[in-house]
């Protein structure tokens, strides 16, 4: 497929990896990919298999589903259960467990919960159902916030009264800062979230290199993007540089997307603080609707319980999100917590480190740890027959 296959070239991947091997000279390096999209690519394409073994990818807090605390999911379910409400969400959120149930359970019990790929589709549903209240469950980092903002602006322009937004947009920079300030931080560099940077630009990451002396490479989402970004990070470390570099220049402009930022600015403002799953309360780390948009603010329109719920004691999503432990080091990983019956949110979304690892990665590590014979797939089984 054009524009995709070019970024999945096996030979190029191997060449880059041998360069990484040469530059890193066997030192053990921990590099955090902040974005859940990167985690997904790493596991889906088996990138850890081709990287030199001394490069350790640590999976960061960049999966918006995974960082949402249970209390907020309970609030969402409470709104969805109100009569006359159509609750609209991204598909990933359906299975995320709240303290007692999930949106999927609420739907099974009769709530009208639907999934869409764009908030504008939620607006369409509002158009089609004038007698219902349509609530959009807005989640995500700066990547998805602009589309929520544009939807709000359109709802305002078209005077749509039966639409509101349950806003849970979070900001990536305060989360990175929280990780950098955390006492168990042992990271050597960061892969920056390419799609967030497409919106906010490069400048907000400058403090990581300047104040914390860690290299940051803003990375794309194809396998070669990630391997090249690791290469650029290792090269910075090797040359003693600490900079913000842009690997994803085909998409990310240094100043970001001013139109998107403007739409966000018009509709949303910072919350004084917001709870992150596993990371706790982080100040100025989330967005809410501006008072001018109170009419479309589901938190103002509906009663929500707003109760803070502690994470299940067995769940170690917090440590996984901070990169302090690997998914399989969690006490309940793969036993009580699986993609079918997730306890923690990291097991729910395909971008969650635990689900990605459970789905795609668990064998290669089991092989390393238990010295099982690693499957050699170098001779493709069909090669000799393919053209017969």
């Amino acid at each position, binding site marked *: *497929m054009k524009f*995709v*296959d070019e970024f*999945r*070239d*096996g030979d190029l*991947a*191997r060449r880059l990896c041998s360069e990484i091997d040469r530059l890193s000279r066997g030192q053990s390096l921990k590099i955090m990919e902040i974005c859940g999209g990167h985690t997904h690519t790493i*596991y*889906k*394409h*088996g*990138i*850890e*298999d*081709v990287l030199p073994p001394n490069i350790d990818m640590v999976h960061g807090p960049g999966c918006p589903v995974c960082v949402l605390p249970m209390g907020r999911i309970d609030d969402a379910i409470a709104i969805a259960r109100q009569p006359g409400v159509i609750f609209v969400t991204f*598909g990933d959120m359906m*299975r995320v467990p709240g303290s007692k149930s999930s949106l999927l359970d609420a739907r099974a019990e009769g709530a009208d919960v*639907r*999934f*869409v*790929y764009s908030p504008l*589709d939620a607006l369409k549903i509002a158009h089609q159902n004038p007698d219902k209240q349509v609530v959009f469950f807005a989640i995500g980092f700066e990547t998805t916030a602009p589309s929520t903002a544009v939807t709000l602006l359109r709802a305002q322009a078209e005077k749509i009264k039966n639409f509101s937004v349950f806003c849970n947009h979070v900001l990536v920079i305060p989360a990175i800062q929280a990780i950098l300030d955390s006492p168990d931080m042992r990271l050597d560099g960061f892969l920056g979230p390419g799609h967030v940077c497409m919106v906010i630009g490069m400048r907000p990451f400058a403090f990581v290199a300047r104040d914390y002396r860690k290299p940051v490479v803003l990375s794309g989402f194809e*396998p*070669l993007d990630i*391997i090249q970004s690791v290469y650029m990070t290792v090269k910075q470390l090797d040359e003693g540089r600490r900079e913000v570099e842009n690997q994803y220049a085909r998409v990310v402009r240094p100043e970001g997307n001013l139109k998107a930022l403007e739409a966000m600015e018009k509709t949303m403002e910072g919350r004084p603080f917001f709870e992150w799953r596993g990371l706790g309360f982080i100040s100025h780390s989330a967005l809410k609707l501006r008072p001018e948009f109170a009419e479309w603010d589901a938190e103002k329109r509906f009663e929500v319980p707003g109760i803070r719920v502690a994470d299940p004691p067995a769940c170690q999503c917090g440590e996984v999100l901070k990169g302090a432990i690997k998914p399989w080091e969690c006490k309940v990983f793969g036993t009580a917590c699986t*993609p*079918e019956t997730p306890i923690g949110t990291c097991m729910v979304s*395909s971008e969650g480190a635990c689900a990605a690892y*459970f*789905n*795609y*990665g*668990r*064998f*290669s590590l089991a092989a390393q740890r238990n010295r*099982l*014979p*690693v*499957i050699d*797939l170098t001779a*493709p*089984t*069909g*090669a000799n*027959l*393919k053209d*017969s």
Partner: protein
Amino acid sequence: MPDRDKAYISLGDTLAKIERVRQHRRQKFYLHDTHVTLSHGSGGKATHNLIEAIFAPAFSNPLLDRMDDSAVFDITASRLAFTTDSYVVSPLFFPGGSIGELAINGTVNDLAMAGARPLYLSAGFVLEEGLAIEELQRIVDAMAKAAARAGVTIVTGDTKVVQRGKADRVFINTAGVGISPVTWPMGQAQARPGDKVLLSGPVGDHGIAILLAREALDIETTIESDTAPLHELVANLLEAAGPGLHCLKDPTRGGVATTLNEIALTSEISIALDETAIPVRPEVRGACEILGLDPLTIANEGKLLAIVAPEKAEAALSAMRSHPLGREAALIGEVRAEPAGMVFLKTDIGGTRVLDMLVGDPLPRIC
């Protein structure tokens, strides 16, 4: 004698009326309704009209036309295959087909996966009050056409109507009987280390066609469902590989990933796949990339996976490729002994990953 005259006239009238009714009942059945109502499920006259006007002409064959409670027939074979499946797909009509084609091909394929030649099907309909007769007619016509293509006859059937809101327009159940020439153990427990894994063509077409036919997504493509009867392709395979054919499965719900995991678990073997060898249409790959789906977990309705002894793999592959439905068949991997119960994929960039079953249901009611 006015009284006698009256009686005489009224007797004549009555006889004339009876004769009119007799003639009327001999006429063809006309269904004047535009929508299905509860009375069409009452078992009374309306039911009779519906059956005679819609089902009987479309599915007509000597066994069905008797309209007895059971179809009665002789089969001169000692090994029969017997299966059933229900169809609840939404939407009812989608690019490349409708619930009608699925209801025939799905059951035909279940028989074909036992190596069987399908003979007879039953068809049970659950109709929701308010369904347009015109839509029912289109579905029934699609079934008749698909049955003719597959060379099967529908020999018995049933219709029920439920109140509005108690079903979603049409649900169809079909059961089928076929004759199986397979005398060796064949099935998902029969994969052995060294066997080759063959796939009959590109994956993901059906699931993506359904997904995109639902209104919530505004993506325009030319992707069509791949629904098709596979028994002829299977007959070719049987001829080419004989007892070397260890397992046949059609990767419907859950896709290739789920089907191969089932085989790996039941046969207690491991399956190693080469991602680059698995055919996927560019449009399907594109849609999957956009929607964040894995084509290997997407449903197919006209593809099969064959696990074949290594010495028969080449013959099996060319037998598949010589049939129109297997033109793009490929050898996608092989069976290994260890670690049992798992499926692996050598990825495009040369890494390895576990290929797990589909978890959850990203896309309910695809067939």
